[in-house]
C-alpha cells in the first residue's frame, strides 16, 4: 500500500485532504506540536477528525513532535492516553521521552519518528526500532542510496517528504530562530530565519532559502525502493494549495500504478504545483547535492497570484446553477477551470454571474460573497474554481 499523507491545519483542510485523495492525514493538537501557530485541533476536533477520516477509510497521525524541555511534560501522559482513546492511528514524535512513554503506558499508538531526528542511516533506524518505532520520516537530505540501504537493512516503514517547503538546515539542527528572535524552533515557534536576508559588509546580502521540494520525477523510483508513505508538507497552507497538491499527487500515484503517466502529464502537474505555491520546486537531495539552482537569491522571488476564484458549495441540477463562495476577483468573460475530487478538470468561460439575491452582476469582487453561475455540468461541493492558466491538453 502506497500512502499519500497530507497535512491539515484545521478541520476544513482535513476534509479537503480526504476528498482530494489523501490516504492519511497528519495534524497537531493544541499542545506539543511543531506548528504552534497553525490553528491546530482541539481534543474534540481530534475525535471528530479521526472519526471522519476513519469512516472514509483514511488514517490519522497526530504530531507530538516538539523537543521537550523539562517544564513541557505536564499533561503529556493524559494527552497520549486521550489520543489512544480517540483511536488515532499513530503519533509522530522526535523526543525519546515521548516514545518511551507510549511504550511504558502500553498505548495502542503506532510510533513514527519525526524528521527532526535527522536520520540518514540504517543503524540509527535500528536504535529507534528497538524502542518500538515502526515508521521513520527520513531527513530531507536523504539520497536514493541512503533510502535504499535503510529499507534493505531494516525493513522499516519509510515516510519521505515529496512536496513542500524545505528547511535550509537539517531539521532539528537549527536554532537560528532562538538566536535572532528568541522563538524556539524546536518547540514550534520557528521564525524562519533561513528566509531572511543576512547582511554582508561590502557584498550582496546572503540568502539561504531553498526552493520547495517536489519529487514528481522520482515517485516511481521511490515506490520501487520501498518507500511506504509520501508526505506533503504544509499544515499552514491554504485549502486551495492543499487541494491542488493532493489532487496532483493522487493522480500521479494512481497513474504510476496504472502505468499510464506520461512525461507530458508530469510537466503539466509540475506547472500546476509551482503555480499554486507561487514558488519553484525541485527534487533537492534525492539525486544530487542541491546547488545554486535549488536556492532562491535576492529575496523570495515569489509572485503572489489570485488564481483561486471560488469554492463550490452546491449544485442545483434543475436550474443547472452552481453556488460558489468567492475567494478572488473574477468577472464575466473570464476563462476559468473547475477541478475537484473524482472528476476531470474542465474549462469554462464565465457568461453570467448572479449574486445571492439572484441579481445579475458583471463582477464578483467581494471575498466570501455567495455567487451563482450557470454551469451545464454537475459538480460536487468542495470542488474549486480557478483561473485557467494551464490546459492539460497542451501538455499531451
Amino acid at each position, binding site marked *: 500500500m502506497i500512502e499519500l499523507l497530507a497535512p491539515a491545519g484545521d478541520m476544513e483542510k482535513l476534509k479537503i485532504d480526504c476528498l482530494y485523495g489523501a490516504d492519511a492525514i497528519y495534524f497537531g*493538537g*493544541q*499542545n506539543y506540536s511543531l506548528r504552534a*501557530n497553525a*490553528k*491546530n485541533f*482541539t481534543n474534540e476536533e481530534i475525535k471528530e477528525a479521526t472519526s471522519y477520516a476513519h469512516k472514509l477509510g483514511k488514517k490519522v497521525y497526530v504530531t507530538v513532535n516538539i*523537543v*521537550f*524541555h*523539562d*517544564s*513541557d*511534560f505536564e*499533561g503529556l501522559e493524559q494527552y497520549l492516553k486521550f489520543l489512544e482513546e480517540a483511536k488515532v492511528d499513530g503519533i509522530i514524535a522526535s523526543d*525519546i*521521552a515521548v516514545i*518511551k512513554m507510549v511504550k511504558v503506558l502500553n498505548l495502542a499508538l503506532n510510533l513514527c519518528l519525526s524528521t527532526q531526528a535527522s536520520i*540518514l*542511516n*540504517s*543503524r*540509527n*533506524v535500528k*536504535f529507534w526500532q528497538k524502542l518500538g518505532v515502526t515508521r521513520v520520516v527520513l*531527513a530531507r*537530505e536523504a*539520497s536514493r542510496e541512503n533510502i535504499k*540501504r*535503510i529499507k534493505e537493512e531494516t525493513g522499516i516503514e519509510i515516510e519521505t517528504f515529496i512536496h513542500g517547503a524545505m528547511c*535550509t*538546515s*537539517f531539521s*532539528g*539542527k*537549527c*536554532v*537560528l530562530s*532562538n*538566536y535572532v528572535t*528568541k*522563538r*524556539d524552533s*524546536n518547540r*514550534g*515557534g520557528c521564525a524562519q530565519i533561513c528566509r*531572511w536576508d*543576512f547582511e*554582508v*559588509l561590502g*557584498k*550582496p546580502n*546572503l*540568502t*539561504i532559502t531553498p526552493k520547495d521540494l517536489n519529487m514528481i520525477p522520482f515517485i516511481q523510483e521511490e515506490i520501487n525502493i520501498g518507500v511506504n508513505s509520501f508526505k506533503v508538507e504544509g499544515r499552514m497552507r491554504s485549502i486551495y494549495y492543499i487541494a491542488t497538491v493532493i489532487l496532483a499527487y493522487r493522480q500521479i500515484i494512481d497513474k504510476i500504478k496504472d502505468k499510464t503517466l506520461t512525461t507530458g502529464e508530469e510537466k503539466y502537474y509540475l506547472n500546476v504545483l509551482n503555480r499554486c505555491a507561487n514558488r519553484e520546486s525541485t527534487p533537492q*537531495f534525492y539525486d544530487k547535492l542541491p*546547488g*545554486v539552482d535549488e*536556492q532562491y*537569491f535576492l529575496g523570495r522571488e515569489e509572485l503572489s497570484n489570485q488564481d483561486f476564484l471560488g469554492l463550490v458549495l452546491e449544485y442545483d441540477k434543475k436550474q443547472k446553477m452552481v453556488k460558489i463562495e468567492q475567494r478572488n476577483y473574477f468577472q464575466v468573460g473570464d476563462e476559468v477551470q473547475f477541478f475537484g475530487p473524482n472528476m476531470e478538470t474542465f474549462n469554462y468561460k464565465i457568461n453570467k454571474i448572479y449574486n445571492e439575491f439572484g441579481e445579475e452582476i458583471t463582477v464578483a469582487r467581494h471575498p466570501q460573497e455567495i455567487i451563482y453561475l450557470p454551469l451545464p455540468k454537475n459538480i460536487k461541493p468542495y470542488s474549486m474554481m480557478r483561473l485557467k492558466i494551464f490546459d492539460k491538453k497542451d501538455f499531451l
Partner: protein
Amino acid sequence: MKRLVTALNQEFLNKIKDLEDIEILYPLESFCIGYDYYYPATKIDGYALINRILTDDDLDILDSILKNSHFKGIVFDDLGILEIVKDLPLKKILLLDHLALNSISINYYLDYVDSVVVASDLNYEEIKYITENTKKEVVLYVFGLKKLMYSRRNLLTNYALYHQEEINKKLEAKILDKDFRIIEEDMGTSFFMGKYYNGLELLNLNNVLYYWYDFNQISLQEAIDILNNKVNVASSPFLLHDQVSFKVRGDK
C-alpha cells in the same frame, strides 16, 4: 574539575599539556564539521569528536577506524554510531546538538552511553535542573563557538556562484543586531554565533563529567587565557538568562 578541551593546533596542545584535569577532544578528520583543525585517527589519543550526520557508507568507514583506534572515548551526534561502538572499550558521550533538552530524555539516553552533552540552548535554571536530575554525570558546554545551524548545502559556494563573486569558505554576516560566523566545508555549511558562547557560570554546577571548552576560530593565547579564567574575547551567555517563546499549551 574535569575539563574537556577541543584541540586547536599542535602548538596549543604543547602549551596546555601541563594543565591539570584536562582531556583533549580532537575533531576527527572527515567525520566532523565546522572546525579549524581536524585530526586523523592515528593522531588521537584522547576523545574523538564526530559531529556529522552520517550515512551507512560513512559508518562502514568509521567502524573500521574505531576498531583500530586508540581513542579514550568519543563525543558523537549520530545515534547510528551506537551500533558500531557497543562492544568497544570507549567512553561514549552523546552530543545530540539542540535535542538533549530535558532530564527525562537524557536519562533514557544514559542507558546507552556514559554521558550526554546538555544542549546549550537552555537557560541556567533548566541546565541546573538537568544536572540535579540525571542518573549519571553529564557534560556541560561552557565556552565555545556556538553552532546555530548545520546545513548539508554548500551555501557560501552557491552564494558566490550566483553573484559571480570569488568563493570564500568563511563569511561574517548580520541580521538586526545579531552577528554570525559562517563556515562552509565539503560536507555542508555551519552557522555560528558571532560572539563566543560564555557559560562559565555553569562551572558551579555539580554532577558533571566534563565542562567542555569548545575552542574554534580563536587564537592560542585567547584560548589559554580562558582556561586560566581570563576571558579576553567578545562573548555572550546566549539564552542562559532568557526564556524563549513558543506555544505549547494552546489557548486559541
